């Protein structure tokens, strides 16, 4: 749900009649009955469209709110459960996002908030037909999971990404009570994994699962229970097991689920007898619908040939926890000509990326993760040449996340010349503030080239030594930019000001360790109301400035967290976001709400 004070212009839905409905302030009746309007609007799925529709007139506002079934709340504190409950009556699916993104990197203390419990209590009251809950960066306790499992008889899909606060006990409740469960998807969570017994809590005759992802859990599950589950769930299309599942177990699972579209394997390293190896190959070849492959924990690349048949139709290969050398990677990649998305570890090195460039012409998304992000002395991994090689061979590339130790302005310029369609450009040069290693100049021209060439750029993450010039470029050229992440960059307030003034579509701005101060913060007063949020940590902002911001913009929540022992006037961490719900009531003591 979007709060859009400066909302987009009311858009004429293609289903709407031409003009008569646009007389918003009159009480004249609609040219057709409400039921028709509602029926028409029920076809609208996009949140942006619905937001526009709701601004047309009162009738449309009501028709829209009575027909909305999917709720998307990008910042759980931008609105309150009460407000939501009053406005919408028929919600079946909820997506809630909580903590600021930098909480993924330990910049937000524990117990900061974003606890879903209060929301669940409201849902239990108002939306008994709730079917789906998708949470990102929220805290959810076992108690909440129990409440969820027992309050909604038709509950079907639970997805927890980057969440914390629960344990396998909570999963037990879900497995036990949710009779119509179709989706259980757990990713990147911080949970207590006491034992794998939760899987055995699914009823014996249970057969409705379509998505099961427990790849990030540690404990061993009961394999018989898993095998039974997989055979009974005929519509299972996504199965991602954890690393306790061995290769021969995997083979048995695959035999039961040849219809799988997305597979996350367990450990790929067991010693197989020749017969088993052949069986595994057959099992994989039977999976004609496989589009996504992940897992491959602890891999023995001699077993890769079993994958070759399946690889031909793969569109997403996720090797981001698999430490492969460039040669093994290259031979696997040769069998994956249809890849659109590829996630790898930088152990494949530049040579591996050259193989990407030559084997995967259809590639659209590449993420290269660091195997050893803290050892700057070993300096392994990829360099700018790998990236350039990919850009040469993969002209359709539009999403990149790249971790490296060195980069040059020239390389980036070449890359965006080859691939001007970037929508997401996230470059992380792992030692902060590093200049172009060949010329020793700042990396301004690199990111300048990105924003000049890539007019569709929506998301940018920057690194390296950057002066205000980078921000001038961004303000001048990045007209479609929505999300900007900045770290250890900039020379003065002017940098941040350029961005605030120049990027009309900016929604999320996250800044850490930059020399931006009060003038910068206060140059964005009205701007912040058009954005979802602003995060500034370890910059030069004082509490007084934050107080002033809070005073002048009452519809913004301004929250400050201080580091202990830092000087009293500094606002070490500032989180500013628009909200129609007022200051939050569950802020812990270490969060100062101004």
């Amino acid at each position, binding site marked *: 749900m979007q709060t859009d004070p400066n909302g987009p212009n009311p858009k004429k839905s293609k289903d709407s009649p031409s003009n008569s409905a646009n007389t918003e302030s009159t009480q004249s009746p609609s040219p057709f009955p409400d039921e028709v309007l509602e029926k028409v609007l029920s076809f609208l799925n996009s949140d942006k469209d619905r937001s526009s529709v709701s601004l047309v007139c009162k009738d449309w506002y009501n028709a829209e709110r009575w027909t909305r079934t999917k709720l998307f709340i990008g910042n759980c504190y931008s609105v309150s459960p009460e407000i939501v409950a009053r406005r919408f009556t028929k919600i079946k699916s909820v997506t809630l996002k909580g903590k600021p993104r930098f909480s993924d990197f330990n910049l937000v203390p524990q117990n900061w908030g974003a606890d879903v419990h209060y929301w669940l209590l409201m849902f239990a009251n108002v939306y008994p037909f709730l079917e789906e809950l998708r949470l990102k960066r929220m805290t959810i306790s076992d108690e909440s999971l129990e409440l969820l499992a027992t309050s909604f008889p038709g509950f079907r899909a639970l997805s927890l990404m980057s969440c914390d606060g629960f344990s396998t006990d909570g999963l037990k409740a879900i497995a036990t009570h949710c009779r119509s469960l179709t989706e259980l998807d757990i990713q990147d969570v911080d949970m207590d994994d006491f034992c794998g017994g939760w899987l055995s809590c699914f009823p014996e005759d249970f057969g409705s699962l379509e998505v099961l992802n427990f790849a990030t859990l540690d404990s061993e599950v009961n394999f018989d229970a898993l095998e039974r589950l997989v055979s009974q769930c005929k519509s299972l299309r996504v199965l991602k097991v954890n690393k306790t599942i061995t290769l021969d177990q995997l083979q048995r699972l695959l035999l039961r689920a040849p219809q799988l579209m997305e597979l996350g394997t367990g450990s790929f390293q067991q010693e197989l007898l020749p017969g088993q190896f052949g069986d595994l190959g057959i099992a994989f070849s039977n999976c004609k619908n496989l589009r996504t492959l992940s897992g491959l924990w602890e891999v023995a690349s001699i077993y890769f040939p079993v994958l070759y048949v399946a690889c031909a139709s793969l569109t997403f290969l996720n090797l981001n926890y698999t430490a492969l050398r460039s040669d093994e990677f290259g031979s696997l990649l040769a069998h994956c000509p249809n890849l659109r998305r590829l996630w790898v570890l930088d152990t494949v090195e530049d040579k591996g990326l050259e193989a990407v460039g030559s084997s995967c012409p259809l590639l659209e998304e590449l993420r290269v993760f660091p195997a050893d992000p803290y050892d700057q002395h070993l*300096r392994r991994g990829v360099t700018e040449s790998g990236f350039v090689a990919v850009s040469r061979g993969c002209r359709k590339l539009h999403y990149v996340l790249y971790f490296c130790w060195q980069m040059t302005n020239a390389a980036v310029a070449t890359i965006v010349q080859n691939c001007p369609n970037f929508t997401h450009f996230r470059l992380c040069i792992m030692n902060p503030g590093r200049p172009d290693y060949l010329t020793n100049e700042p990396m301004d021209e690199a990111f300048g080239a990105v924003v000049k060439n890539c007019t569709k750029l929506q998301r940018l993450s920057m690194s390296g030594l950057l002066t205000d010039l980078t921000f001038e470029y961004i303000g001048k050229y990045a007209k479609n930019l929505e999300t900007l992440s900045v770290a250890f960059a900039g020379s003065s307030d002017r940098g941040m000001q350029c961005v605030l003034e120049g990027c009309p579509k900016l929604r999320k701005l996250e800044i850490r360790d930059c020399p931006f101060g009060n003038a910068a913060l206060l140059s964005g007063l009205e701007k912040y109301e058009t954005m979802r949020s602003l995060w500034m940590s370890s910059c030069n902002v004082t509490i007084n400035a934050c107080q002033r911001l809070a005073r002048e913009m009452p519809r913004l929540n301004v929250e400050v967290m201080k580091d202990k022992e830092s000087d009293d006037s500094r606002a070490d961490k500032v989180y500013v976001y628009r909200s129609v719900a007022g200051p939050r009531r569950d802020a812990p003591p270490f969060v100062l709400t101004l």
Partner: protein
Amino acid sequence: MSPPLLGVEGGGHVNAPLMSSSASVDCITQSGSGLKERNYLGLSDCSSVDSSAVSNMSEENKNNLNLKATELRLGLPGSRSPERDSDFTLLSSGKLDEKQLFPLLPSKDGICSLMQKSVISGNKRGFSDTVDGFSEIKSSVFTEGKWMFNATGSDSGTPQSVVEAKLAGNAGINVILSNNSSGSQPSMKKELPTRTLQEGHNKINGSNNNNSAPAAKAQVVGWPPIRSFRKNTLATTLKTNDEVDGKPVPGALFVKVSMDGAPYLRKVDLRTYSTYQELSSALEKMFMCFTIRQCGSQEAPGREMLGENKFKDLVHGSDYVLTFEDKDGDWMLVGDVPWEMFIESCKRLKIMKGSDAIGLAPRATEKPKNQN
């Protein structure tokens, strides 16, 4: 917000809000040296021992390093002050070996300070780094916990690591800048120390490879921006794929430790101990303050010892018993099985009141064998 659960068995464990830790935080500030400690980790256990040692360190800092250049300032890349300019010139003019810019080793006097790998304390991730330059000190421990406490710093009794942890905090970039300047200057003035530093570094790197990977390296909070799950997984994955002698070296094994009556839980890395004795001592030190209710203030060393004795009496008397929950969900008394087996099956630890532990084993009220 979920109510705090104090190490209650079963159910979901939601970490108790640790705001109370602020009450017990030590403030060890160094006014004269320009060092700013950021102690938002709630270093409840490092008490008196550290303050004097810390001041010694800062003195020697001054002797070894150009004070101005190593002074922690809130300067950030791009913000220029005259000294900084010269540093940057050094940066660009030289073919400066990267290693000099980020020295990860003690200076020749064995002081870990700014030149040290900057130990950064995140809000979630605690980091106490003990360098092998100090022979008596055991190798680095990577304390990862929801709220991290530098208990390990005090475990090994290394004041240096405590200071490091405090130095870091969100002033990560500051430390790096200081590293730059301090690194580059020796290269211009003294060849020899630099080389010794390099060798020292190699040694340290080598020995640190036996520990969990992140512990050996310089870190800024939350940088590079990778998620916790990846950090934890890679520590294990790499060791598995990387080992030289064919023996996989596992990563950290963190388990929660709760104690009846304590307002918050701790986490320990079981792999950093090799006997029950070590674990027991470590836990004693961690939880001492809850039994004594005197933590959080800088006291004379004598008091600490008094505290220890009292704790020991409590633990080894009939009051407290150490138990663990195994893979099957059963609560067992710690100490019955060989250490290796214990590590494999232990999921969490609890320091129970002896009266609660009666059901576990009859000898809960006797002196356990793993005693000092």
